[in-house]
């Protein structure tokens, strides 16, 4: 009996302790004080508390509004099935809702239709009403014509060209020194600088040499003649395929002469795949190109084991001491036509749902007025890079009146500084702003410079990327039915054809890719065409 009593007492005490402990856990960890607004943001633990970020204390001073920032980590946030039900918050920053989710919440009145409050948002209103930029309004509108979120617009002109080809000039030098250059290639050491122009056959011959001869300074087991990450948004094989004269991107679709087109239907696309099969079987392309992740690609590239690679800058791929080994190549010259081509991607520079306001907010106008400040170029720049006071931008402007970023952060690298101090999110940095008000950070500038000098000139004539399209419910249904499995089928056919031991035949392409997927291809094209046409007509109506 005694034993039982002791056991019962122990259990009761334990339970009491546990329940007491967990009750303590139900208290919210928010600040107890009164604030004008509470905004939930999504950030990692390593990022500074937004409440202590100079850019926000500065904003509080400017606007006189007291905004308290709570946060979810991305893990928490992505698992939260219904974030707008979190109690006590007025808005979600870095909301990242899909179009459908945005529209769903919006039409049910759970988030605010921002277009109804434009009078308290002079900056945002001006942006939306700019006749030259009706594409912005188009991108933001939901199917019911309302705007339910604040966007992030960062137009550096970089995303459309995510592949630059880099070549290891030190390896080529070794070949020159050993007098072992392929017979078809005529290169002097002084030619080995940025902007080198090579025919595709010359490039292939050089890669073959990389593959076959011993290169000093690299383990022949690890050596990769040509590296890329298939299907990745940057550094993919699209520009190699494009050099055959087809405007390839990773979605295999573009607008050609106003028509939505699939590149896979182009015979040049097939020729490219057939040739890549040869490259693969010669060992110029490794199978890792089709199975590695972006991270694995970057990690391996650090020690300079790539003979050539596609990425949008060499600085992230290769460690500092090896970076100068690589030069920028122009897009490869097609041997037959003598032309050079660069593909154009469909990556968007307008991100739609960066911030949403909940309908439960008591002073919607006030909060939107606060967020409207974010669209001022100087604030935008600081949100993107950190604040004047903490040194991301020099405190004065240069002679042209432009804000200039500051690279001096003591022991911290610029990247590290930005990661920890810049909240990113809602910004308005259009091409025009970069031109007139803000100097780009040096690396972005370098990237852009390379693109301007060597790549952009070779864009296909009459080819444009597909803009942010708004689909109707019916159109979405069609896309859902066909698009993802079509994507699967294309990448499977492509990868398996390139890595097969024998060249793919034309009939294989016609039958197993095009014929089997005929209906999917046609439906996806049709729907996109309709959406694109209505996009065009709306834009021209607005301006």
């Amino acid at each position, binding site marked *: 009996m005694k034993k039982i009593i002791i056991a019962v007492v122990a259990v009761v005490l334990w339970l009491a302790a546990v329940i007491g402990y967990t009750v303590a856990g139900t208290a919210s960890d928010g600040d107890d004080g009164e604030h004008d607004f509470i905004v939930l943001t999504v950030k990692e633990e390593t990022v500074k508390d937004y409440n202590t970020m100079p850019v926000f204390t500065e904003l509080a001073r400017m606007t006189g509004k007291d905004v308290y920032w709570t946060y979810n980590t991305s893990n928490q946030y992505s698992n939260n099935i219904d974030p707008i039900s979190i109690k006590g918050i007025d808005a979600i920053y870095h909301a990242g809702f899909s179009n459908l989710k945005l529209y769903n919440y919006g039409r*049910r009145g759970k988030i605010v239709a921002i277009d109804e409050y434009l009078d308290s948002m002079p900056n945002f209103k001006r942006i939306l009403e700019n006749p030259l930029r009706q594409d912005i309004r188009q991108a933001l509108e939901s199917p019911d014509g309302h705007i339910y979120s604040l966007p992030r617009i960062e137009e550096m002109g970089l995303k459309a060209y995510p592949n630059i080809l880099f070549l290891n000039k030190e390896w080529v030098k070794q070949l020159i020194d050993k007098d072992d250059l392929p017979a078809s290639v005529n290169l002097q050491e002084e030619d080995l600088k940025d902007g080198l122009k090579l025919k595709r056959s010359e490039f292939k011959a050089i890669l073959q040499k990389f593959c076959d001869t011993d290169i000093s300074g690299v383990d022949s087991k690890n050596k990769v003649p040509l590296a890329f990450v298939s299907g990745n948004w940057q550094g993919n094989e699209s520009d190699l395929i494009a050099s055959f004269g087809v405007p390839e991107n990773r979605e295999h679709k573009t607008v050609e002469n106003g028509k939505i087109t699939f590149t896979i239907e182009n015979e040049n696309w097939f020729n490219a795949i057939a040739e890549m099969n040869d490259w693969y079987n010669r060992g110029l392309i490794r199978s890792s190109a*089709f199975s590695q992740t972006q991270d694995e690609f970057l990690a391996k590239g650090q020690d300079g084991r790539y003979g050539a690679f596609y990425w949008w800058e060499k600085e992230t791929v290769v460690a500092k001491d090896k970076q100068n080994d690589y030069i920028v190549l122009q897009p490869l010259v097609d041997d037959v036509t003598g032309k050079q081509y660069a593909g154009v991607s469909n990556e968007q520079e307008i991100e739609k749902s960066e911030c949403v306001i909940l309908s439960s907010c008591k002073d919607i106008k006030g909060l939107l007025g606060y967020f409207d400040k974010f669209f001022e170029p100087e604030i935008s720049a600081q949100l993107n890079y950190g604040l004047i006071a903490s040194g991301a931008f020099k405190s004065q402007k240069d002679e042209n009146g432009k804000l200039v970023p500051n690279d001096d952060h003591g022991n911290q690298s610029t990247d590290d500084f930005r990661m920890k101090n810049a909240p990113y999110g809602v910004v308005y940095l259009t091409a025009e702003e970069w031109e007139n008000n803000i100097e780009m950070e040096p690396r972005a500038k370098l990237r852009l410079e390379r693109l301007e000098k060597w790549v952009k000139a070779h864009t296909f004539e009459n080819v444009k990327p597909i803009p942010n399209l708004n689909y109707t419910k019916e159109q979405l249904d069609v896309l*859902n039915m066909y698009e993802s*499995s*079509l994507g*699967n*089928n294309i990448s499977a056919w*492509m*990868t398996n054809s390139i890595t097969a031991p024998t060249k793919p035949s034309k009939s294989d392409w016609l039958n197993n890719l095009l014929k089997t997927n005929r209906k999917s291809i046609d439906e996806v094209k049709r729907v996109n065409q309709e959406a694109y046409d209505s996009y065009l007509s709306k834009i021209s109506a607005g301006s």
Partner: protein
Amino acid sequence: MKSLNGASAEAVENDLLIEQAYEAMSEGSTGDGEVVNKKAPDKWEKWKNNFKRRGWILLFIIPALLYVLLFCYVPMYGILVAFQDYGVGDPILGAGTVWVGFDNFTAFFSNPNFGDYFVNTFLLCFLGFIVGFPLPVIVALLLNSLRSKKVKKGLQILYYAPHFISLVVMVGMLKLFFGADGLFAGGSDFFIKPEAFRPLFIFSGNWQDFGWSAIIYLAALSGVDPALHEAAKVDGASRFRRIFSVDLPAIAPTVIMLMILSIGNLMSCGYEKVLLMQTPGNLPTSEILSSYVYNFGLKGDAGYGVGTAAGLFNSVINVALLVIANFTSKKLANQSMW
């Protein structure tokens, strides 16, 4: 030679009359009560009698049952989403609910690749079952027959340790070992080959979990009476023969029950590992229904409706498989889940 089952079978015989009565009772409770009553008022009396005498046993099941009713049955209205045009934030039952009938199912079935994905799912799960089900049983039997307790225990811990490796790391190691330039890849890359996906998936899954799955069998085996082994030895049975005459009968009920449950889950392979192992090259075999629904519903926009419809479709197949497996087991092994 008496086996465990023999012993209990005898007891069952002795108790046969009572048993039959109970069975009748429980049947009466689920069947159409009134008809039963009219046909056999005796049964009803017996049932009442039994309930009065031994009804307290219900106390033991009630907590678990209440828990299941609250946490599993109350949320079950979510299945209705399969028949709705639903997005997060919509009410499942309310003024704004958009009912679409079987549209979600149509969207799911009419996908041009549906047949391929279905076959992929079946093959992956079925082959996984064929390899993965017997392995833990065999390992448990072998381990149990070891004479050294220390070796047995050591091996046991070693075998189940891989269970705790997270999927991300697991697939990371697979890539390292079998991917491009991998140690065991022999110059090729198993990750871009459609034909290598299933073996890799099944092999690694078994590698991770056979030891863990063997635990339940080992526990059952440790309850086997040593006297049974002694008796069998006397009969001249070798250690190998005793596996079949003593050990296997002892765990047979557990094996059969787990087999029925596994067959009932034949069509539900999780998508997490599949997604981690997918490359454009192995898509022809690696895209299965659940990964397709994930890609379609969660990454894409459309959603919950189709995802739930697919889940429902899967469940129906699984239940059918379960019923078949259970029926077969009842006929062949005289053992039933319920």
